[in-house]
């Protein structure tokens, strides 16, 4: 592997443009540079997978069981509001 293969983007630059890349915010040329870098650089391809795992884990938080009490409190607010409205 020659140095010029990865020179377009350094790893340090790569980690800063990753969100733009994942969000579809790069132009075609920049996207091609990033994708070429991922293919060539094991560290950065691991980094992308770590970021995808991180996003996946964040999504799992929403599936955790919510506490039941806030719903009861909300219902009390509703009934009070309703009583005031029809009064």
């Amino acid at each position, binding site marked *: 592997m020659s*140095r010029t293969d*990865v020179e377009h983007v*350094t*790893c*340090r*630059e790569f*980690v*800063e443009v*990753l*969100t*733009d890349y994942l*969000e579809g*915010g790069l132009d075609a040329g920049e996207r091609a540079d990033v994708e070429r870098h991922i293919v060539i*650089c*094991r*560290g*950065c391809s*691991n*980094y992308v*997978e*770590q*970021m995808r*795992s*991180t*996003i996946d*884990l*964040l*999504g*799992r*938080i*929403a599936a*955790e069981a*919510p*506490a039941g*009490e*806030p*719903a009861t*409190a*909300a*219902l009390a*607010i*509703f*009934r009070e*509001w*309703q009583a005031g*409205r*029809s009064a």
Partner: protein
Amino acid sequence: MQPVAIPAGRRPDNEDEQALVAALRRGEEAAFVELVARHGASLLRLARTFVRDRAVAEEVVQETWLAVLNGIDRFEGRSSLKTWIFQILSNRAKTRAVRERRSAPFSALAGDGEDDEAAVDADRFRDETHRWAGHWAAAPADWSALPEERLLGSETLTQVHAAIETLPPRQAEVLVLRDVEGWDPEEVCAALGISDGNQRILLHRARSKVRAALERYLSEGATP
């Protein structure tokens, strides 16, 4: 039937939200119960990014519900019902957070993620004296080699929660809405009143920090 151009993210709820608004205006309890079931847990998660104390966060959510009910007759449907509810929560939680921390130095509130922080510590990369300057000195590990229960276990989720709690508030709220609640960037910008560019910077900083925290946790006990 031809598909109609409605902003992405609002499509599935739109008609159904109109029906909910109408039912709420008629004072139907079932409609309110449905609304709480849909958004209650998400509102509490977002409130907790502003006010860390759970009891205070719950109060903010309750205040939000009351404001929603009191304002429902005036709701004009210019944003989605969901966006409107979260705007109310966000404004109330911010006010409350300022009150809770008014004795704290201003800098504690100024942590908005505008500062120039790196996604990865500089010492992880080769320095300028090296011919591979800017490339990994200590490359990230392959997490797919980890046992699934290590990567996806409840202790790892606890670490994710802890990492979110250490984020500056604005980074935390964007991260929670985007990656925990799964909102579109447009919805997040509307609910929080921020530009798309700002939203992406806050998301980038927040995700990078949570990844770094997970990397520290997951590398514990790993044999070098």
